[in-house]
């Protein structure tokens, strides 16, 4: 096991896969000469050269579509969005082309492409630079959506995403790039797409949280533990397909569910998890499913407001106590 930053784990995944497979290339704004806006691709231009590590103009629709065409043409593109906030100007390429061409062609083509980059809130950047996109992309059949919370999952899942023959949306986070963690250095380390991870076992309440929210969940679980409440924390890791079975099994044990999702609330991933669990484990639920999300407003700039906007551990603790009728 090596101790790696999140960004280093992502880079290792890309580098290892690009060494294995000549058809993989990385394309995006500032990924080559600048070594990546957030240094994820640092050194990759030097190693692979300008044929495979390619800077683009600010044309998300253009290079997003170029990636889809390159995938149709037999390559395996990794398209980096500097952040997924900027994917909205190119979203048509993802939802109408990447997600649907295979279906519309009756399965004649596969589209092995990964769209990756930071997703969600990243502090005092204002409303246009803090959008959580997981629910929007997971809505579309034809796509897979992955949102890891730690370096090890990031590496194992990105390698799987790059090898996957379907279009994959891979969601990272600026504020997690410097997060360090143990990463398997197993020769060919991949993790299965669509399998949740029980990060912490517990009996009293189940907390489901992905990406950054996972860390909020752990903090809440610690606080609850100090009060004698044992929380089970599940990191779904993949949003589409979502591993509902693991959550159902946990709820059958705890009979209570709290979801932490830093997205805005309406029709978010938390909504879908709630629907599925009440549908699949209704008789096991001793309390309504509760959730903690970002506030139902655009993201503000001011420090105190953006902190208040984001899901906080106290809120998660309160939610857990509510479902435990401990408050």
């Amino acid at each position, binding site marked *: 096991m090596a101790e790696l930053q999140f960004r280093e784990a992502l880079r290792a995944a890309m580098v290892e896969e690009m060494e294995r497979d000549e*058809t993989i*290339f990385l394309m995006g704004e500032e990924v*080559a*000469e600048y070594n990546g806006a957030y240094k994820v691709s640092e050194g990759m*231009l*030097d190693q692979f*050269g*300008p*044929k495979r590590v*390619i*800077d*683009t*103009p600010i*044309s998300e*629709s*253009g*290079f*997003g*579509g*170029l*990636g*889809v*065409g*390159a*995938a*149709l*043409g*037999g*390559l395996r*593109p990794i398209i980096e969005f500097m952040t997924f906030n900027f994917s909205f100007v190119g979203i*048509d*390429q993802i939802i*109408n*082309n990447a997600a649907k*061409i*295979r*279906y*519309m*062609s*009756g*399965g*004649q*083509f*596969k589209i092995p492409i990964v769209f990756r980059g930071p997703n969600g809130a990243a502090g005092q950047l204002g409303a246009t630079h803090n959008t959580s996109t997981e629910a929007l992309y997971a809505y579309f*059949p*034809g796509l*897979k959506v992955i949102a890891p919370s730690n370096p090890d999952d990031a590496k194992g899942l990105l390698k799987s995403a790059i090898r996957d*023959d*379907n279009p994959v949306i891979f969601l990272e986070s600026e504020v997690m790039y410097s997060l360090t963690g143990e990463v398997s250095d197993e020769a060919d380390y991949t993790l299965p797409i*669509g399998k949740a991870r029980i990060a912490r076992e517990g009996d009293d309440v189940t907390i489901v949280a992905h990406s950054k929210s996972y860390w909020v969940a752990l903090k809440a679980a610690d606080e609850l533990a100090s009060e004698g409440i044992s929380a089970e924390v599940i990191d779904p890791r993949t949003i589409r*397909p979502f591993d509902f079975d693991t959550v159902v099994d946990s709820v059958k044990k705890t009979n209570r569910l709290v979801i932490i999702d830093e997205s805005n609330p309406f029709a978010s991933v938390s909504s879908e998890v709630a*629907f*599925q669990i009440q*549908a*699949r484990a209704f008789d096991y639920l001793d309390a309504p499913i509760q959730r903690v999300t970002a506030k139902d407003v655009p993201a503000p700039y001011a420090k105190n407001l953006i902190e208040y906007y984001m899901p906080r551990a106290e809120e998660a603790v309160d939610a857990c106590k509510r479902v435990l009728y401990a408050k």
Partner: protein
Amino acid sequence: MASETKNRNKGKRSAARVNVAGEENVATRAAGNGSPIALPDVVEVKATFKTYQAENYDHKKLGLTDEQLVDMYRNMLLQRRFEERAAQMYGKQKIAGFLHLYIGEEAISTGTAWAMKIGLDSVITGYRDHGIALAMGVSPNAGMAELFGKIDGTSRGKGGSMHFFSAEKRMYGGHGIVGGHIAVGVGLAFAHKYKEDGGVCMTFFGDGAVNQGSFHEAANLASLYELPAILIIENNQYAMGTSVDRAAAEPDLFKQALGYNIPASVVNGMDMLACYAAMKDHIALARDNQPSLIEMRTYRYRGHSMSDPQKYRTKEEMEAKKHDDPIIRLKAYLVNNKISGNEELDRIDDEVKQEVMEAVDFAEKSPVPPLETIYEDVYVENDYPFLTD
């Protein structure tokens, strides 16, 4: 590395550039990143564009044999008869949804199919896709079955009229979002260059699609990366009910090339030999990684789709255009040059009509897709856990 990347981006452009307004670049941008000081009193831009006119080409000089020319005539006729019959079947409700007919524009598809290397080169187009698919050799049976929504259709009944695809022919669709496929075509060209397989990609789109930002981004990328890409505007004068001059501030669409530093030509899209000549020349440029733009001036004889009152054009205009019919023009060429005679050409027409009737029978007899196929072709794997609650 920096320079290397630069080279990839700028490489042989200057060498290959023809007919483009590139000359002043140096004048207005000093070495490196243009010291803003270095400005001449006035900047002049000059550019010339080649045109391919009607009644201007000799098939032999273009390297086409008499036999090939007759085959091309048959091919244009196949597209025409296929769509006439499809329109009839739409009336009988055998076909539903949108049905966009290519009738009048067949010179472009046939000229292209004979100028390209089918199986190596790639083609992608919009929803008006029957013509180019048939020109490239997609079978009328599979095409008609797709229109009927049957399992033997090109897309197993999942795509319909707007979504003809053929992996075998490298026909990449058939796309419904105006402008949305242009960058995909540039990506196909990118793959050809990356794999160094010698292929090029031809991307067809309408005059209306030029006004989409996606055209602008794709054209810039094709030029910046020097891709074997040909962007072909099928200017049939209208986007639905909107004439070109009501949608494009610069209705000379080929002038878009000036913004991307690529060569462009204007072609009479109602003359198959002109289309063939232009495609030959631009494919040659593309094989040399010189991207380019073509404006094909053509005309849509039918309504935009099946329900179009066509109040936006006069009977007179439509009558006048009939004289440009690319099939009649080629027929005249064949007869006048004694390459063929009315008798043979009528026989060909009968054979083509027969072929299309058989396609209708085939489509009729083909089964509807089994319901379980609705979950197939979404993902590559067959065990994807779809939501069923």
